[in-house]
């Protein structure tokens, strides 16, 4: 399995058409969790990323932060997910002024990332992977980026556009 993954890391990334595995992850240090299924009815963008504080993740998530009006235009929720603790998320989000939730796939470590086929066993971190989940909780688009490459936002926007006509501005 691991050997195969090394040559084709996208092999077990959940593909379009699959049901998005539900999860219930800590979203804030004071005990608030976020459950994916409560967002049913609107598109959800899941952004798995390796680590808070790392340079590529900072660039990538700052770009998504700059695009908040676009996500709102599609009535979409964007969620960041990594194995960092909720306290690291809190400090990083404050430092970088991130305005969307960061979820802690911390305990059991990486369980949600694994369920999406977006966990790198070797490094013990989430992969840099993107998913668009449709109104019914089905994956409509997924993308695995090389770990050191910021995938940008074009693929996400194209996927949201193809999902439905955007909410009137």
């Amino acid at each position, binding site marked *: 399995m691991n050997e195969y993954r090394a040559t*084709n890391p996208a092999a077990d990334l959940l593909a379009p058409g699959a049901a998005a595995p539900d999860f219930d992850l800590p979203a804030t240090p004071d005990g608030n969790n976020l459950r994916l299924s409560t967002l049913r009815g609107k598109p959800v963008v899941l952004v798995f990323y390796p680590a808070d504080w790392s340079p590529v993740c900072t660039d*990538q998530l700052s770009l998504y932060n700059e695009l908040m009006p676009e996500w709102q235009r599609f009535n979409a929720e964007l969620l960041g997910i990594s194995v960092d603790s909720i306290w690291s998320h809190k400090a990083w989000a404050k430092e970088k002024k991130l305005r969307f939730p960061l979820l802690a796939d911390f305990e059991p470590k990486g369980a949600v990332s694994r369920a999406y086929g977006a966990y790198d066993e070797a490094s013990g971190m989430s992969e840099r992977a993107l998913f668009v989940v449709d109104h019914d909780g089905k994956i409509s688009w997924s993308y695995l980026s090389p770990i050191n490459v910021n995938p940008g936002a*074009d693929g996400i926007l194209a996927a949201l556009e193809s999902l439905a006509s955007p909410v009137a501005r």
Partner: protein
Amino acid sequence: MSPRQSYHAPRLTLPAGARDHIRGPIDARVTLLEYGDYECPFCGAAYPVVKQLEELMPTDLRFAFRHFPITTLHPHAELAAEAAEVAGSQRRFWQMHDWIYEHQDTLEPGDLRRAAGTLGLDLGQYDADVESHRFAPHIREDFISGVRSGVNGTPTFFINGVRHDGDYELETLVDAVRTALLAGAR
């Protein structure tokens, strides 16, 4: 890197045209377009390289600039972009653009306004345009056009509409522009 598919560099979805700030010969065979952020240190490092490149290729190359401010990381970038656009509406875009990249450490509102005065802008109009964010929609249009063209950070260059994925050392850019010239000559 995933071996799933062959790689194609992203293309510019909004071609360089009348809406853009472009300098250099109108009939140049190569257009170098940069998406840049005025407070980004990497863009600051690329600035003199682009100038050298323009000096090396005065007839074949023209240069266009679009805004790609990441405002949370660079809190001065948006106002600087607006200041450059105001200057552009008074036919001094490139003077302000150059001033900003030569003064990246001093981009407070008062600094930009003083620069506007030094460049001979109508300061009453400058104040009104900054106050009303007259050019914010244009800057946002630049930004979104970049996002849709595969820009994920700054600086990102496009050469004749194709994203340049190499570094921005002078030699690299000279090679890339020459390659585009050859491709165009075929």
